[in-house]
């Protein structure tokens, strides 16, 4: 009780310092007056009495200090003093502060940026009180041929899984894709998600307006064409008008009634992505061909909430045991038969990124920690130099009775202050960098965009990093300083030698780490260079891909009618002035779309061989010439290859050599791709299909006109810029085929870049980190030599006066740096090569032990390092020997 009361009194004194101080002075004065009176009464002269009183009282300042210690929290008051002291002392050396701040701002900034991603993708949990019970459903499919895992299901499976009440409280399923929302005349691209009825109740979401989707909406197929929109979509497209409720909107050609608005900041199954429009799965057939009950369609992703009281292991075991029952209840004709159902932890949300981004993110995190270490070493070195210059100050302070602990604390507060200021700048840098990274990552991405924002965890991380940095970097110099003050006077040789040893070791560590960082950058850059220059088998410059189809994809369009429209459109596109050549294909290469078929070859003696899983695509007339793919043998598709005419096929070189090794493939007959006894009419060069990284695949080409597809991708070789052309095509489609729409317009270059987005990101980041690490290490080298030149001015003077040439003096310092750099490279290279093993899975046709990469790294580092030493070293050559000798 009294202790508590005392605490409060101390606390209040903290804020009434001036008054407490005044009271104290008054009391001391009164006390002295009384004493003086007493002595005067004893017959002393006033003057004598004054001195006697002071003697009896003892040291006034000491008494005051004791009083201060008792009345409040001295450590807190002192801390405040320390902060102000540190501020004054730092503001006297702006140069030091600038270099230290910059090192830290970048060192901590890149840390915060990468941690923002790590936090957003790998650490953050769904904002649900029971996130730990959320699981993601997966299936293991075992067929006689092969075993594979799937995380997508057909609708009947979801219905059966929902019946497993022994395991799950609820199961939801969802399917997202980008769609065209038509408002007025302007079509806009939005993210549409089809969801099962209990989706919103699963996340415990309340509507911002109207109502959200419920089980009734999703009960009967096609009965309830409704949707809800996101708060952001409501604001952007409907101006926040409450009348949006009951309004009908057209999305991908389907009419849906808006019934509600989802609250702002809604987090669905994924933390990194959100939709703009949600509709029940029951409306699927109005957006895509085929009802949702279609058992052959594997499309839905599923999350489930475990029943309360059931453990993860128990749930997994029960689900596995129930798998045969679920399977038995499903329609017989379906894809992914014989699945064994499994669960995976989804407390961090449905996993679309974690699996693929985990390793790159962890590696980046490691890299930024190395950068921070280099920055820390810089700060330590700067502090050491600074402490050395301030030895006199410390000696005086110690002599005046400051405790060593207090001095240590003052110095630590100084470095903490620098670190915090650096951290504040780092936050700004990290926000900009994170934005840049996401933009880079999402550029050209067609379906999923990654969204991550910093939060309080990130802020805490930054703060923690600042404090740890300040301690790591500041502790040794501060300790040194607080110890060193004892001997006032000329610097002792042993002391400065040990200090210079420490400084050298720090620079050595910096150089070693810089080698590691730089090597990583060189590897990624090399890999990206490989990916960019890899022969795709076609010429991708100045090619635009535009997908064209009926605006309601669910609509059954007669192939003949569609062919007519598409042909007409193609003819008009070819007339556009900026178009050189154009052709249809389906699907478009490099977009991720792919079709495959088995390929039955009948040889001359009537025997058949089957090639499974041959990739193919429908190519229109002029496709190969548009992409500049070489026709090696035979002929191209012609206008005469019509639906009624004999079926024809073109194969690539790989397929030709695989199907008819050593024979002329022209004129051979094949069954497959829905064609009977199609004639091989030509052979083209090998090319990439879905990905830049893929190996050479056997590919067949079917005549677009014989494919009965009702939509296709225009491949256009154009002149000039792609944007005006895109607009021209948009207008063309509107006038020629008003019921058709274009989507996913992108140049081949953008498509390629989106395929290597992760590589681009990694290269960009590793180069940034490599550059930062090296730059910081060079600052270390520069600082060391510069300091050494200053310290040895006298020595240089002596050397020059006895006849040393400028070059010799310069060499003195450059050699010093060179030895250090060489040593750092020798230490760093094996370390870098070892660590690079971790990267190899992410690299394309680059090996870590390739001497070329190592030599580039070493050369870069040595050259820049020598330059960093040359600049301050040159200063040494300008020393005037007479002055140098006179000044000491």
């Amino acid at each position: 009780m009294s202790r508590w009361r005392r605490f409060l009194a101390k606390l209040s004194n903290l804020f009434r310092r001036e008054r407490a101080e005044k009271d104290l002075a008054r009391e001391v004065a009164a006390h002295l007056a009384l004493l003086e009176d007493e002595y005067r009464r004893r017959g002393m002269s006033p003057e004598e009495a004054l001195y006697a009183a002071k003697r009896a009282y003892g040291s006034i300042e000491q008494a005051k200090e004791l009083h201060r210690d008792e009345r409040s929290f001295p450590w807190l008051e002192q801390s405040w003093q320390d902060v102000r002291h540190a501020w004054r002392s730092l503001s006297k050396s702006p140069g030091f502060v600038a270099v230290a701040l910059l090192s830290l701002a970048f060192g901590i900034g890149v840390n915060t940026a990468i941690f923002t991603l790590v936090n957003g993708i790998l650490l953050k949990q769904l904002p649900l009180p029971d996130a730990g019970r959320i699981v993601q459903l997966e299936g293991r499919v075992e067929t006689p041929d092969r075993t594979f895992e799937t995380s997508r299901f057909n609708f009947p499976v979801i219905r059966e899984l929902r019946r497993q009440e022994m395991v799950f409280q609820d199961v939801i399923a969802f399917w997202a894709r980008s769609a065209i929302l038509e408002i007025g005349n302007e079509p806009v691209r939005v993210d549409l998600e089809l969801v099962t009825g209990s989706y919103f109740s699963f996340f415990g979401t309340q509507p911002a307006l109207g109502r959200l989707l419920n089980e009734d909406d999703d009960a009967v197929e096609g009965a309830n064409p409704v949707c809800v929109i996101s708060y952001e979509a409501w604001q952007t497209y409907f101006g926040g008008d409450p009348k949006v409720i009951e309004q009908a909107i057209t999305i991908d050609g389907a009419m849906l009634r808006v019934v509600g608005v989802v609250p702002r900041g809604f987090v669905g199954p994924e933390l990194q992505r959100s939709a703009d429009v949600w509709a029940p799965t029951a409306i699927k057939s109005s957006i895509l061909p085929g009802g949702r009950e279609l058992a052959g369609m594997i499309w839905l992703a599923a999350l489930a909430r475990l029943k309360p009281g059931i453990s993860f292991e128990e749930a997994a075991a029960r689900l596995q045991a129930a798998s045969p029952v679920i399977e038995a209840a499903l329609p017989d004709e379906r894809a992914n038969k014989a699945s064994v159902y499994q669960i995976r932890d989804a407390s961090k949300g449905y996993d679309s990124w974690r699996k693929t981004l985990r390793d790159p993110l962890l590696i980046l995190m490691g890299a930024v920690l190395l950068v921070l270490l280099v920055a820390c070493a810089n700060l330590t070195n700067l502090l050491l130099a600074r402490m050395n210059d301030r030895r006199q100050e410390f000696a005086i302070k110690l002599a005046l009775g400051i405790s060593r602990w207090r001095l240590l604390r003052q110095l630590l507060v100084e470095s903490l202050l620098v670190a915090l200021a650096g951290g504040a700048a780092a936050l700004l840098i990290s926000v900009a960098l994170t934005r840049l990274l996401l933009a880079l990552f999402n550029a050209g991405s067609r379906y999923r965009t990654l969204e991550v924002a910093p939060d309080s965890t990130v802020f805490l991380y930054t703060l923690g990093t600042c404090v740890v940095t300040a301690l790591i970097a500041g502790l040794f110099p501060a300790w040194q300083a607080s110890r060193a003050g004892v001997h006032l006077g000329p610097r002792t040789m042993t002391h400065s030698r040990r200090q210079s040893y420490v400084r050298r070791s720090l620079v050595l560590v910096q150089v070693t780490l810089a080698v590691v960082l730089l090597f990583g950058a060189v590897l990624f850059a090399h890999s990206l260079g490989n990916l960019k220059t890899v022969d795709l088998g076609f010429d991708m410059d100045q090619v635009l891909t535009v997908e064209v189809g009926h605006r309601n994809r669910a609509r059954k369009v007669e192939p003949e009618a569609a062919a007519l429209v598409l042909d007409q459109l193609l003819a008009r596109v070819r007339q556009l002035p900026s178009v050189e050549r154009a052709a249809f294909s389906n699907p478009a290469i490099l977009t991720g779309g792919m079709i495959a078929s088995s390929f039955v070859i009948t040889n001359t003696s009537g025997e058949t061989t089957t090639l499974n899983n041959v990739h193919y695509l429908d190519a229109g007339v002029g496709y190969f010439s548009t992409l500049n793919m070489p026709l090696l043998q035979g002929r191209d598709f012609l206008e005469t290859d019509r639906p009624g005419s004999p079926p024809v096929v073109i194969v690539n070189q790989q397929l030709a050599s695989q199907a008819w090794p050593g024979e002329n493939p022209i004129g051979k007959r094949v069954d497959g791709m829905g064609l009977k006894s199609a004639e091989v009419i030509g052979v083209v060069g090998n090319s990439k299909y879905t990905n830049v990284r893929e190996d050479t695949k056997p590919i067949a080409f079917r005549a677009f006109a014989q494919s009965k597809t009702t939509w296709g991708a225009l491949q256009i070789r154009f002149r000039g810029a792609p944007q005006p052309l895109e607009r021209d095509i948009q207008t063309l489609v509107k006038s020629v085929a008003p019921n058709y729409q274009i989507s996913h317009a992108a140049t081949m270059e953008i498509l390629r870049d989106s395929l290597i987005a992760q590589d681009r990101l990694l290269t960009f980041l590793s180069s940034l980190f490599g550059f930062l690490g090296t730059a910081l290490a060079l600052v270390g080298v520069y600082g060391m030599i510069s300091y050494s030149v200053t310290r040895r001015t006298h020595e240089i003077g002596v050397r020059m006066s006895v006849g040393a040439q400028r070059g010799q003096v310069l060499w003195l310092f450059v050699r010093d740096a060179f030895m250090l750099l060489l040593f750092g490279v020798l230490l760093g290279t094996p370390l870098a090569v070892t660590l690079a093993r971790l990267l190899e899975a992410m690299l394309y046709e680059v090996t870590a032990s390739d001497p070329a990469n190592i030599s580039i790294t070493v050369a870069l580092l040595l050259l820049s390092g020598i330059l960093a030493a040359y600049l301050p070293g040159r200063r040494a050559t300008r020393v005037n020997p007479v002055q140098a000798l006179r000044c000491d």
Partner: protein
Amino acid sequence: LDLIVLRTLATMGPQHAYGIATRLQQVSEDLLRLNQGTLYPALVRLEQQGWIKGAWGKTENGREARFYAVTRKGEGALQAETQRWRQISGFIEKLLWEDS
């Protein structure tokens, strides 16, 4: 020291720091010669605990001084503390006896 100061104030009534110091010297028969300034921490502690209360007043010679008086709570605390001190000193006494 806290206990001594508290005790002094309890027996002598409200007193200023100088008075307390003089009194202590008398009682201890000059055995305890402390710098008078060292009294302050004890006074601060006692006041913050609410056992004594200080107020500005005038001495008989018309000098101003801060007078400290024991509060009701202070009296209770004095008793409890005295009790405790006796116990401890008795205990130490006993220990010392046994040792010698």
